[in-house]
């Protein structure tokens, strides 16, 4: 019976499975710690630092037309000017200006452009803020101005919409894998998916704690993409394992898994690399708008291809034992 020969395997994943599990468990733990710390942090109070899209408010981006020296303006000066605005004029038909005490000012590109976060303003009030700041900042490039105002209800809707669609797509994917493969495969694919999403969130929780990075609606999009990519990647390995189960039926599951992982290893690495290349290009050469989006995807996809090699297949023999 034992005439089935084990094909030559360059890399046996099951030998490293304890290390793999510990590594992943540690990463998950660190992510959870990061999110808990974020939650406990008095300035954040949520597992991830929410951006304008979730908190609501007004964000004004300005581009200055300064020629040589743009560095003469400080964030404090701008905040001071905003405070003055509070005690100055109000137009008759407009709603009262909210307190601008809490305004956050961020200078970018050596003072050439700046980002101001304010409480929710009407377009007319935002205009007034922009024209007032002209006296501190000098001439502004009107074509380089962006004003975003987001009501507080919209963030809720966005969050709810993303979460519901994410959960529904998880359920649908699990049903599909159960139909094409087996329940254990579906469960493991979901474990992998949770692993990838958790670690991506964890990285951003730490970034939020240490660098003040905020998550926006693009982050929600990137999480959804990571989830989809993670499943695709895992399914390819599962497909190979299932194939080995017919050709190498006499061998134990561990060996089948090792053969399958070894056979798909090159593909997994190459695929992640080719997906990461455009993302890395976006990080290094893309605009600032897409920077954190590309970072989130890079982290998620790197973790996703790791989990499809090191987590899902190595867990399979543990759960597949009948």
């Amino acid at each position, binding site marked *: 019976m034992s005439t089935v020969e084990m094909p030559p395997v360059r890399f046996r994943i099951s030998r490293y499975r304890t290390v793999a599990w510990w590594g992943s468990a540690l990463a998950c733990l660190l992510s959870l710690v990061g999110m808990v710390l974020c939650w406990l942090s008095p300035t954040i109070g949520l597992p991830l630092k929410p951006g304008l899209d979730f908190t609501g408010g007004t964000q004004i981006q300005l581009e200055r037309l300064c020629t040589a020296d743009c560095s003469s303006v400080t964030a404090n000066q701008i905040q001071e000017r905003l405070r003055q605005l509070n005690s100055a004029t*109000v137009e008759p038909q407009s709603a009262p200006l909210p307190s601008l005490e809490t305004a956050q000012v961020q200078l970018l590109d050596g003072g050439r452009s700046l980002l101001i976060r304010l409480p929710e303003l009407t377009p007319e009030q935002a205009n007034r803020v922009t024209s007032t700041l002209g006296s501190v900042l000098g001439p502004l490039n009107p074509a380089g101005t962006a004003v975003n105002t987001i009501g507080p209800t919209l963030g809720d809707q966005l969050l709810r919409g993303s979460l519901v669609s994410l959960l*529904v797509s998880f359920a649908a994917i699990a049903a599909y894998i159960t139909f094409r493969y087996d329940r254990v495969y579906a469960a493991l694919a979901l474990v992998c998916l949770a692993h990838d999403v958790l670690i991506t969130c964890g990285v951003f929780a730490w970034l939020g704690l240490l660098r003040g990075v905020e998550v926006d609606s693009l982050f929600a999009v990137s999480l959804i*993409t990571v989830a*989809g990519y993670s499943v*695709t990647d895992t399914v390819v390995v599962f497909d190979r394992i299932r194939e080995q189960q017919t050709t190498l039926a006499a061998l134990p599951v561990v060996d089948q898994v090792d053969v399958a992982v070894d056979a798909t290893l090159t593909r997994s690495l190459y695929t992640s690399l080719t997906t990461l290349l455009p993302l890395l290009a976006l990080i290094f050469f893309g605009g600032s708008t897409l920077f954190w989006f590309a970072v989130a995807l890079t982290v998620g996809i790197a973790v996703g291809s790791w989990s499809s090699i090191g987590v899902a297949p190595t867990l399979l023999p543990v759960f597949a034992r009948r």
Partner: protein
Amino acid sequence: MARQQGWIALILALAIAAAALLFSFPLKLGLDLRGGSQLMLQVLPAGAVRSVQPEQLEAVKEVLERRINGLGVAESTLQTVGNDQLVLQLPGEQDPTRAANVLGSTALLEFKAQRPGTEQEMQGLLQLKRQATAVLNRLKGPSSANSEPTSSGLDQQSKAPQPEIKAEELARALTQLGVNVPAGSSEQQQLELLLGVVNQRIVALYEPSDLSGRDLVSAGRQQQQSGSAWDVTLSFSREGGEKFADLTRSIAGTGRLLGIVLDGRSISEASVGPEFKAAGISGGGATITGNFTADEARDLEVQLRGGSLPLPVKIIEVRTVGPSLGAENIRTSLAAGLTGLALVGVFMIVVYRLPGLVAVLSLSLYALFNLAVYALIPVTLTLPGIAGFILSIGMAVDANVLIFERIKEELRSGNTLIRSIETGFSLALSSILDGHVTGLISCIALFALGTGLVKGFAVTLAIGLVLSLFTALTCTRTILRVLMAYPSLRRPANFLSMQQLPARSS
């Protein structure tokens, strides 16, 4: 070979069609890429209406559409989102202030008669109102009367002439009306506050009436003969004209005033002379003398013509992007995308040799088809959309990698080249299919349940997945087969390095 030629012809035809399509229908760019303003409006349930019904949303949209047409912004679009939201896009519009003002208010115009016995209180309030308005106008400077209120900078405040209300007088008036003045507010702020409260008090002195903006057939504006202020003229329907005549007859010669109230704000008070005692003011017309600026008069005219909103709306999101910011976004994202693609192409050719070249060719076709589909549907290309496109290219490469890895495996295990290619394609099929189907499943869920941004991403990714399935399974395969017809190319060394091949003897 004949079958291959058929496929080649099909692929070529598709490529030409896609190129022609792109040439004649340029890609639609989102506002984040071309610049402009986007306003999101939430329709609020009010009164007896608990939740917004589709027909009510439609009714709100109709009124808003009339108002937007009055604004005269080219290419503006108003779309319903979900059950109770509307999104207005104004391409190229840098200042959404006017749009927000015109859209956000209900524009409920009411004509009301003063309650009997309130003459004295009204006199006092009106005097206060006149005073406050006069001082405010002078504070704001003479130039701001005709221009946009926002353009009146802060500098004008400094050269304001002597105010007519003394500080203590103002404070007394405010405390009499029971207004809490926030500490540190300027004189102008206090005056604004006073004016608001006075207008509320005036409205409270009116009787309820059933003559409203619904009884109007049209509205217009005209400049006052003396001075630069504008009036808004109204024409009533037949029924409205009768109601107006009744209303004016009831107060004619009594000293009680006729109030014109817009959205709960008293904008004009007029007395009706005793000569109208008999028949009231007939003729079905009226003029609001509210001392409007030209812009205010035009906006009010637009609102009144469009009719009042059946339900109030609230502006919940305003996004404005400058055109050069949009161009910057396009340029950098495009540059990054192309750099990434070039790197992927180099990688594929280095690792997979001849088939790598084939993959680059079929991926170029993939990108071409993708953009053509965007132009055809049409998909409005936004920043997340571009990201989805770049990402879907990465995933399209995956299908090719899967196939070529299989081919290499088959070659290593000693199969002939042609057979390896055929087996490679058929063995890779199931995993490619599974990967794409799971991807499409999440796209469907995201599209059905997600919000705007997520939806756009789901659409571009779904198009990418379907097309990548097509190009990997037909384009790559056909081109590879056609090339294999040339004996000089039909060598395993074009697929992998010779050391990896099994020795001939074994």
